[in-house]
């Protein structure tokens, strides 16, 4: 059944998705460019169109801590943050994933200080890839809304029970407006049953929560976390299929490919930049250039097999990312390179382009230049800044 349509920013689409998912507890602290998400949610709680406990906390550390506590009594929880705020909750990120509390969080990708900057890059979330959360990167407002609803279904699945971070590029997605389809509440209720877990404080079945495990037992819990994030791959595909059947919008799994079947030159990227690459690829195709695009949606679990399949026939591959691990290379590049190396399928040329740091614009002309660059024989520097 079709719902209504609305002209929403990425942040407003997230807030609309959260309302449809009916969380019991929202705890968040405002930070640019996330602020309008939690402003809209506060208004929804105020006008009672969303029946949730809205906790006004004094920091991001407290925001996620409150969500963990609420999740530990069986509540569905939501928080949102960005940049410095995400780093401030870094300690709690591991508590949430280690405790297997399926908090869903929106992160507005933003640069990290210093120099102080409020604009978009992805160094905040990518520097926290190892914290045990599922990480997904949206390309537009509609996908952001749909990911919030799917996010609860994935995170709360009994094979997964892992928190989920849904990333939107700061300003480029969070603050731009587009026409968004709003699913009907009864359809979302059918898609997303109430959160049920055994991992909670329950007076009828008392358990010790958040306990200690020493050297003999600790690693087993980490292995189980690893298994759970790997298991999320299958759950994500099933969830997207079920979502598509109900709402008519189908998503392509851990990554999306465009013209990769016969492409000689492929650009791999993630987030909103894919929206700039897409029309460039289509235009170059119309001129007879065999170019393609891989848009990574999920960084964890990482689409290892899908990367190999998409890139196996390419002669030149560029990884374009808004992130750098100083002194080495971009983290997305490291992950893509590892997936290819493990399968021993290396494209003859594999370059790492780093751009957009601190919100530096990446234009369609920049993208055309990268495709040209990939065709030139010079291997150049390990990392090329655009």
């Amino acid at each position, binding site marked *: 059944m079709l719902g209504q349509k609305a002209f929403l920013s990425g942040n407003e689409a997230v807030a609309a998705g959260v309302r449809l998912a009916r969380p019991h507890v929202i705890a968040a602290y405002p930070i640019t460019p996330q602020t309008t998400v939690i402003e809209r949610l506060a208004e929804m709680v105020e006008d009672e169109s969303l029946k949730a406990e809205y906790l006004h906390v004094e920091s991001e550390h407290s925001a996620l801590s409150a969500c963990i506590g609420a999740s530990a009594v069986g509540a569905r929880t939501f928080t949102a943050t960005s940049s410095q705020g995400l780093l401030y909750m870094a300690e709690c990120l591991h508590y949430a994933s*280690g*405790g*297997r*509390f399926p908090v869903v969080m929106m992160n507005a990708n933003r640069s990290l200080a210093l120099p102080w900057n409020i604009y978009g890059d992805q160094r905040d979330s990518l520097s926290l890839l190892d914290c045990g959360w599922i990480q997904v990167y949206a390309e537009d407002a509609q996908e952001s809304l749909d990911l919030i609803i799917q996010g609860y279904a994935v995170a709360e699945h*009994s094979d997964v*029970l892992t928190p989920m971070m849904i990333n939107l590029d700061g300003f480029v997605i969070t603050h731009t407006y587009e026409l968004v389809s709003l699913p009907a509440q009864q359809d979302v209720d059918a898609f997303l049953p109430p959160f049920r877990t*055994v*991992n*909670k404080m329950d007076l009828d*079945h*008392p*358990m*010790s*929560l*958040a*306990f*200690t*495990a*020493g*050297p*003999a*037992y600790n690693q*087993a*819990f980490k*292995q*189980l976390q690893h*298994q759970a994030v790997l298991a999320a791959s299958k759950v994500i595909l099933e969830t997207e299929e079920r979502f598509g059947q109900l709402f008519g919008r189908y998503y392509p799994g851990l990554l999306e490919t465009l013209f990769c079947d016969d492409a000689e030159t492929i650009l791999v990227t993630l987030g909103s930049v894919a929206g700039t690459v897409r029309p460039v690829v289509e235009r170059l195709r119309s001129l007879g250039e065999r170019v393609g695009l891989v848009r990574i949606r999920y960084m964890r679990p990482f689409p290892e097999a899908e990367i190999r399949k998409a890139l196996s026939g390419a002669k030149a591959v560029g990884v374009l990312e808004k992130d750098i691990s100083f002194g080495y290379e971009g983290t997305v590049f490291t992950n893509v390179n590892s997936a290819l190396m493990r399968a021993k399928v290396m494209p003859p040329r594999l370059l790492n382009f780093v751009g957009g740091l601190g919100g530096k614009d990446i234009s369609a002309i920049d993208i055309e230049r990268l495709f040209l660059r990939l065709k030139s024989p010079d291997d150049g520097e390990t990392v090329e800044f655009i």
Partner: protein
Amino acid sequence: MNYPVRQKSFKPPKDLAEYPVGTAFPAGHLVETNASWRSLRPVIDAGKCTSCRICWLLCPDGVIHNTKPEGLDIDYDYCKGCGICAKECRQKAIRMENEGI
């Protein structure tokens, strides 16, 4: 202090499938002995001990027990070998012996 009630029935998980999901478990935390921390072990000389219980009172880990008729008794599974009992014993009835080699 009396011996804590141990779960004699506790069986460590054999494989990953036997671990709880998340850190929630009816039995509390998983129990491990920590005897390998110790380089010196306190040994009570029953002939000198007067059962004054100063060691029992001052042991920071509560591993000296007072339940056996023959006198005080040290739980070596959890004693970390700090030596406070030997230092405080007024009868010099506790000596610290080298562990292993």
